């Protein structure tokens, strides 16, 4: 069908803001997000600039999705812990976070998730290496990457904390 398309694209977790910018760029061009999968984005044709798209890392919580719906947002889909919403521009401004504190706690959630997976990979990698299992390096590589991601998230958090030291 011509009015639908799927794009495969990879974003690093710490670039979630770039992912969101890209999704909104697509929406501005008349392609609004309609489904998500692993590195897979499904779009449906809409009027250009008809929707605002937002994404967020949030634990599994149906109450939250109901709450978002109640405020006029449409739930698009979920990829593991990442949830995607859209809202018609004509229904008003759409943001998930409106103050620095909630943006910081969102970054904390992402950081926590990265640390848990990072530590698991580090442990598995080390155990495998000590047992002369040759694939141990894969986990160590993953752990290194996740630690790098954690650093990026931490950098974003520090920038926000600097702002918050003077204002809300």
């Amino acid at each position, binding site marked *: 069908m011509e009015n639908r398309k799927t794009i495969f694209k990879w974003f690093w977790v710490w670039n979630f803001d770039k992912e969101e910018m890209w999704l909104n760029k697509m929406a501005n061009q008349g392609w609004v997000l309609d489904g998500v999968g692993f590195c897979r984005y499904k779009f449906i044709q809409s009027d250009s600039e008809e929707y605002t798209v937002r994404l*967020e890392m*949030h634990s599994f919580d149906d*109450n*939250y999705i*109901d*709450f*978002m719906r*109640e*405020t*006029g*947002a449409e739930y698009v889909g979920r990829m593991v812990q990442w949830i995607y919403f859209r809202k018609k521009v004509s229904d008003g*401004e759409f*943001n*998930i*976070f*409106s*103050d620095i*504190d*909630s943006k910081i*706690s*969102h970054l904390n959630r992402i950081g926590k998730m990265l640390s848990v997976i990072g530590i698991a990979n580090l442990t598995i990698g080390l155990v495998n290496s000590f047992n002369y299992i040759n694939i141990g390096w894969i986990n160590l590589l993953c752990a290194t990457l996740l630690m790098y991601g954690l650093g990026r998230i931490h950098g974003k958090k520090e920038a926000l904390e600097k702002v918050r030291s003077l204002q*809300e």
Partner: protein
Amino acid sequence: MNENIALTEATYYILLSLYTPQHGYGIMQHTEALSAGRVKLAAGTLYGALSNMCEKEWIIQLPVKDGSRKKEYKITEKGLVVLQNELNRLKHMVANGETILMEDL
């Protein structure tokens, strides 16, 4: 409970809105109206704040009415004390500002 705290603007307006029972979207609209459009609460921020305030028992969730999925919240006695303390703090801040800047105002 430590009474000597400064509330965030979001917390202050949510507590004020819940002087009468409201559901989530109602709080957002009420806050925007009260602040003459200056404070726009985003849904994720509001959801987090409501959960935290329920935990602190500053507000309670009312039993869900039949046929409605919307959850309503209301301020508690404890929440009213918090709000009153905040109001006193703000009054004091405004008085200080006015005294010092009197000539410029």
